[in-house]
């Protein structure tokens, strides 16, 4: 294991020990459930950010985009009595369009993403406040649950949770067996069966442990399933598609990528559009989690998303980063925020802690990059 992965695990262990020592309730099933919901929002935003950071760009506007997209959906549902799926569809379209425009300007006019998305941060925030009319707009019209509101309030029944975990394990085992068979077919070396099995066994244990803990409260939260789906999609994109390979190529050395025939502009715009979709999904979940769209929804989430990427080993210089890393980084950020809330840390101290973690993560990124690790 690399130094970076290892230090991340140690940091997580230390953080969890500290919170458990301070507030024994930290490990309770109820809090673990809350943590998993908070993880979902942070991680989905960070996964979209990963695509942009891989390109050596940055997205400072995601916090405002989260507010705006959640705000559009909530307004259509509450003020205009739209059906939630239609409202969410329109909101998704808006989110992707906004990111298409930003990506287009950045790729075509070669203006730094920092500037365009900084402008985006303010413009989208302004649009957001216009949409909700500076009011608090609930996600439920007439107190009835809908597709938007259930995102963070609905839990899988136990049988569904068990079925899901079983399915996940079956897929993992099948994928392992199939990949080993294919590698043998090509005549490549295959990792020892024992090692492969123990890796699978550890994954199974983690999944089952999570299921057991979450089931003691209300079950597996729907938002965690959403996160799993988004993570799967982004993982496939980054490690199993040509598009993903191009992301790494552009971020690593854009000039060499151009000469190698990589369509830099199209890939950049595509990455921004996907990030627009993940920002919108985060917007739905974040808004549903607070029960209503308010002027502060999503605020500063861009920083958590960036921090999650960097903590998870993504390089701000581009070309390096992975989905498992970002998930781990988001887990650390979500744990920190959740633990501080449990400890009733004052808002001002929370800001300082968040900022320190971000600065620390970037500092480590610079240090480790310099060593070439």
């Amino acid at each position: 294991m690399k130094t970076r992965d290892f230090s991340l695990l140690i940091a997580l262990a230390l953080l969890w020990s500290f919170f458990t020592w301070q507030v024994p309730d930290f490990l309770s099933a109820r809090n673990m459930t809350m943590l998993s919901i908070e993880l979902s929002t942070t991680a989905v935003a960070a996964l979209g950010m990963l695509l942009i950071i891989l390109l050596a760009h940055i997205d400072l506007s995601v916090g405002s985009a989260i507010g705006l997209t959640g705000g559009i959906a909530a307004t259509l549902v509450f003020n205009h009595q739209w059906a939630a799926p239609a409202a969410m569809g329109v909101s998704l379209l808006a989110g992707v369009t906004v990111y298409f425009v930003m990506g287009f300007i950045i790729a075509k006019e070669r203006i730094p993403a920092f500037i365009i998305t900084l402008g985006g941060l303010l413009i989208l925030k302004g649009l957001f406040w216009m949409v909700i009319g500076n009011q608090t707009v609930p996600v439920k019209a007439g107190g009835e649950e809908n597709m938007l509101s259930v995102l963070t309030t609905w839990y899988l029944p136990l049988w569904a949770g068990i079925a899901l975990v079983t399915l996940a394990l079956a897929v993992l085992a099948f994928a392992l067996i199939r990949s080993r068979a294919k590698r043998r077919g090509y005549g490549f070396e295959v990792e020892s069966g024992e090692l492969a099995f123990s890796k699978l066994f550890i994954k199974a244990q983690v999944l089952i442990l999570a299921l057991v803990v979450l089931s003691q409260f209300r079950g597996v939260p729907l938002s965690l399933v959403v996160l799993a789906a988004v993570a799967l999609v982004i993982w496939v994109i980054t490690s199993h598609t040509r598009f993903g390979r191009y992301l790494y190529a552009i971020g690593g050395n854009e000039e060499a990528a151009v000469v190698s025939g990589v369509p830099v502009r199209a890939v950049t715009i595509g990455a921004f559009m996907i990030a627009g979709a993940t920002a919108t999904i985060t917007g739905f979940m974040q808004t549903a989690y607070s029960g209503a769209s308010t002027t502060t929804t999503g605020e500063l989430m861009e920083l958590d998303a960036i921090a999650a990427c960097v903590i998870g080993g993504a390089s701000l210089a581009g070309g390096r980063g992975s989905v498992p890393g970002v998930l781990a980084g988001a887990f650390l950020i979500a744990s920190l925020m959740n633990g501080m809330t449990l400890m009733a840390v004052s808002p001002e101290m929370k800001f300082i802690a968040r900022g320190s973690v971000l600065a620390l993560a970037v500092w480590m990124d610079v240090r480790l990059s310099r060593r070439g690790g």
Partner: protein
Amino acid sequence: MPVEPILETRALTKRFPGVVALDQVSFDLRPGEIHALCGENGAGKSTLIKTLSGIHPTGSYEGEILVNGSTANFRTIADAGNAGLAVIYQELALVNDLTVAENIFLGNEPTRFGLVDWDKIYRDASALLERFKLDIDPSARTGDLGTGIKQLVEIVKALSKNGRILILDEPTAALTEAEVAVLLEILRKLRDDGLTAIYISHKLDEVFAIADRITVLRDGKSITTLDAADSSPGEVIRHMVGRKIEDLFPKRESAPGEVLLSVKNLTVQNREGRELLHNISFDIHAGEVLGIGGLMGAGRTETLMHIFGAWGRRVSGTVELDGKTMASPSPRKAISNGLAMVTEDRKRYGLHLDQSIGFNLSLSSLASTFIDHNHEVERTGEIFRSLRVKAPSLETGVGTLSGGNQQKVVIGKALLTDPRIVFLDEPTRGIDVGAKIEVYEFINRLTEEGKAVVLVSSELPELIGMSDRIVMLAEGRVGGVFRRDEATQERLLAAAIRFHKDAVTTNPAHL
């Protein structure tokens, strides 16, 4: 009566791993003379300058450097500067947004009470410019000046820091002819006022216009020192190339086929709107190696990169592939049309140094939306083995490889696109002889398969040894086209400097 030299080297030898860059170089500079250094690319001119100016510190070379008769041990560039040596490089070190006066005193600002003394800066700058009889406004923004004027500002800056010996490295490479004339005129005036200078240039007409003496370097050795007044460009060329071609180049039968690519009357500008290629035409046949030669800045790389769609704005002309015009070029389209490019600057344009060999090899030839990793490993593994890349596995980082092995990865990446025409820009630069021969063998393999190879090289023996035909570029124009059997180093070199006035043309019949 011999004059005491102001700067002298005695048996100066500088070794790099695997090469002797300078071999017993003896050279002396008399006060008040302009002394030209001539030699082909790689003859050792830059190494000599770097050694004289402290970039290669004392202890890293054998032999002696003497300033005013006593041994100098420069540890840093600053040491050399304090001894009065000032180097002016091709790339100017001026800040465009500062004024002329600010640039002259940059890093050396006179202060009063801890604050920059602006009055003194402008007063002193005016005085300096006046002393050198230069009509330049010290408060002009440097970026607004022409390249030639900037060059003069750079010279004034160097002299203002008590520079007694000026080293000018290709000072006219970026200048127009009018600017060159002004620069030479001023250098002559400065010499009459006692300036001593080493002048490095490929352009023999300039050398003969300005130099008092000429030292020729070849293969790291100082061949001879001539009095300019008693010599001729022809004599200098003979000394520059006087070497026989070693039997480095594997023999092959060539059977050029039909025309694959036809370049017609290309005129191309760079991003700043300067025309760097003028009316270039040539054909590329299947199964042949077309060599492209020329001096630095002749437009060789630009020509390749433009055809490949990676550089320049076309003013006029067409590129035809199989008789059909290739529209709006981009590297992506060029690759899908069967072109492949191995760039000269591998680190900048050729490789992703942080990534693995496998990542680099497959990047240009990812055909399907989803990547089948096993298939990828099989495909890249094949070329990895056939090119004999020396590395533990495909997972090895490209950044850890030697130059020759990195070059093989770039070549492998190009080959995996299954090209019909392969552009190789200086494919053997900076790699050792063993890897060079492998590159030559690989070129021959390509032509045997009926592919066309375009080989850009600064080394004339390599061009003559490998090419079926050679196009010499000069100043962005075609200076001459030669069949292999009519190509000699003298003829090629003459074609390379053809568009300078007073240039030597040994055999106009071939141009």
